[in-house]
C-alpha cells in the first residue's frame, strides 16, 4: 500500500513538474492570466461598483454567485455536522 502510494505520488509529481515547463514565470506581468479578464476588474471596478478593494468587488459583485455557493457550502457543512454528531433525544 505504501509502495503504491509512493509510486502514485512520485508519478503525479513528475507529471506536475513536467507541466511547469510551459508555465509563465512567477510574477510575469505578461502572463495570459494577467492580460485576459482580470484587467477589467482592476480598471473598471471603482467605476462600476464603487468599491476600491478589487478583491471585495469581484467577490461580492462580479462573481457574487460563487460567494452564494460558498455560503451554501458552509451552511451544508453546518447542517451536516449537526446531523452527524448531535445526539437527538438521548
Amino acid at each position, binding site marked *: 500500500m505504501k509502495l503504491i502510494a509512493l509510486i502514485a505520488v512520485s508519478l503525479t509529481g513528475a507529471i506536475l513538474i513536467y*507541466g511547469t515547463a510551459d*508555465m509563465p514565470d512567477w510574477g510575469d506581468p505578461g502572463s495570459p492570466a494577467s492580460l485576459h479578464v482580470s484587467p477589467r476588474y482592476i480598471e473598471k471596478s471603482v467605476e462600476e461598483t464603487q468599491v476600491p478593494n478589487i478583491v471585495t468587488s469581484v467577490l461580492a459583485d462580479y462573481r457574487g454567485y460563487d460567494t452564494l455557493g460558498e455560503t*451554501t457550502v458552509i451552511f451544508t457543512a453546518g447542517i451536516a455536522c449537526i446531523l452527524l454528531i448531535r445526539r437527538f433525544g438521548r
Partner: protein
Amino acid sequence: MISSPFPVLIIVVPLISAFLIVIAGLIKKSLCYPLMILSLSASVLSSLAILNDVLSHGTVHYRLGGWPPPWGIEYVIDHLNAFVALIVSAISLLIGISAKRMVERDFPGKSAYVYCLFVLQVTGLLGIVVTGDVFNLYVFLEIASIAGYALIAIGEDGAPFASFNYMIYGTIGACFYLLGVGYLYIVTGSLNMADLSKLLPGLQSSKVVLMAFAFLMVGIAVKMALFPLHVWLPDAYTYAPSPVSALVAPLTTKVGAYVMIRILLTVFPPSFFIETVPAALLLRWLGGFAVLFGCIFALAQTDFKRMLGYVLIAEIGYIALGIGFGNRNGLTGSILHILNDGLMMASLFLIVGAITYKGGPRKMARFTGLHGKMPLTMAAFVVSALSVVGIPPTCGFFSKWYLVLGGIDSKQWLFVAVLLASSLLNAILFFRVIEKAYFEPSMDEQGVDRKALNPTGGQQNILSNKVKIDEAPLTILIPILIMAAGVLSVGLLSGRIVSGIIRFAIPAHF
C-alpha cells in the same frame, strides 16, 4: 439572447427551501416534507420550462448579477444540460417523495436535517449541471459532495468509515479538478466555458493545457467512479440509508458523466480528446475494463445492494466506452444512457429500500418467495432488471444499441464484443435474483428460523421474531412504479428523445 428566469430558479428555489426546511423543522416537523416536495417540484417545472425554451429558441443564457460572460458568472443551458437537469430534478423528486416513510422511521428526530441535506444535494447536482463557469462548477460540486458525505454517513454500521473513505477520494477528485481549473486559468486567464472554448484551440500544443486536461479528467473520473478510481463506491452506497443511496448512486455518477462530456465536447475542442491526446483510447479501455470488472465483481456479491454498486460501476463503464468511441452513435448512446441508467438504478436502489423498509432481506439468498409478498415491487424490479440486461423494449436496450452502433462505426470490434458479453453477464446477475424471488418458495414454507432473516445491521426496531413482509407504503411504491413505467416508455420514446434533444447536444460535425 433569451432572458428567462428559469435557469436561476432551478437552483435558487431548492437553495432557499433548504434554509426554510431547517427553520420549519424547529417550528413544526411536519412542514419539512411538503416543503421539500414543493421545492423539488419547482425544480422539475423550471427544468421543464427551460427544456421547452431550449427546444424552441436554442441555447439559453443567464447572466448572474447582469455581468457579461467572461467577467461575471453565466448559466448556459443548451440541449445537453437542459436534458440532464430534467433527469436530475425529476428523479430526485421521485426519490424525495419516497424518502418520507424511510426517513421518518429511521431518523425520527433528525428528519428536518436529512431533508435539508437532501435538497442541498439536489441543489448541488443541479448547480453543476446548469453552470457555464468552471470554478462555479467546483463550488457546486463541493456542495453536492459535502451533503452526500453527511447523508451517507448516517447509514448503517460501516457507513461513517465508508463515508470517510469516500470523502478522501472525493476531495482528491475535487482538488484535482480545481488544479485543472487553475492550469486552464493560468494559460487562458478565463474561467468561462464558452470563453475557454474560444481560447483553447490556439493553445493545444501547450504542456499546461495537457496538464489541465489530465487533471480535470482524473478529478471527474473519481467523482463519476470510473474504473480504477471507483474504490470508494461499493462501500459508500452499500452502507448509505436506502433513500440516500437511491438519490446519490444514480445521480452523482451521472452528473459526473455529464461534466466529463461537457469538458470534452464543449470546453476543449472535440478533436483534442480524440486526436491530440489519446484520451478517447484510454476512455475506451477503462470503460471496457469497468464494464467487465463491474459485472464480474457483481457476480461475486451476496448482498443485493452491494451488487448494485458494482453494476453501477459497469454502467459508468458503458458511458465512458461510448464517449471513447468518439463518434455520433457512441456519444448518443452515452447521453441516452445518462437518462436510462439514472432511471433504472434509481428504481433498483429504491426497490432495495422498499424491501428493507418492510424488514425484508438484502442478501439475495433470502429473496425466496418475495414475489408473492411484494408483487408490484417485484414486477417493477423485473422491468428494471431487464433494462439493465438490455432486453427490448426497455430503455437499457436502446442505449446499448447506440453504443454497439458506435463501436461498429469506429470498427472497435473488441469493445463491441465486451458490450455484448456484458449483457450476458448482467443476465446472469439479475436472472439469478429473479429465479430466487419467483421460483423458490419463501422461507416460511421451508420452516427456517425467522431470526436468521435479520438483514445485515440497521432497522432493528421493527425486526422482531415475526416479520410480515408485504408491499411498501404508497409513497414508496408509487415512485417505484412510475420509474418502472418510465423504463418502459423511455425505451419506446427513445427515438423521439434522440432526434429531438440528444441530436442537438452533440456538436454538428460528428
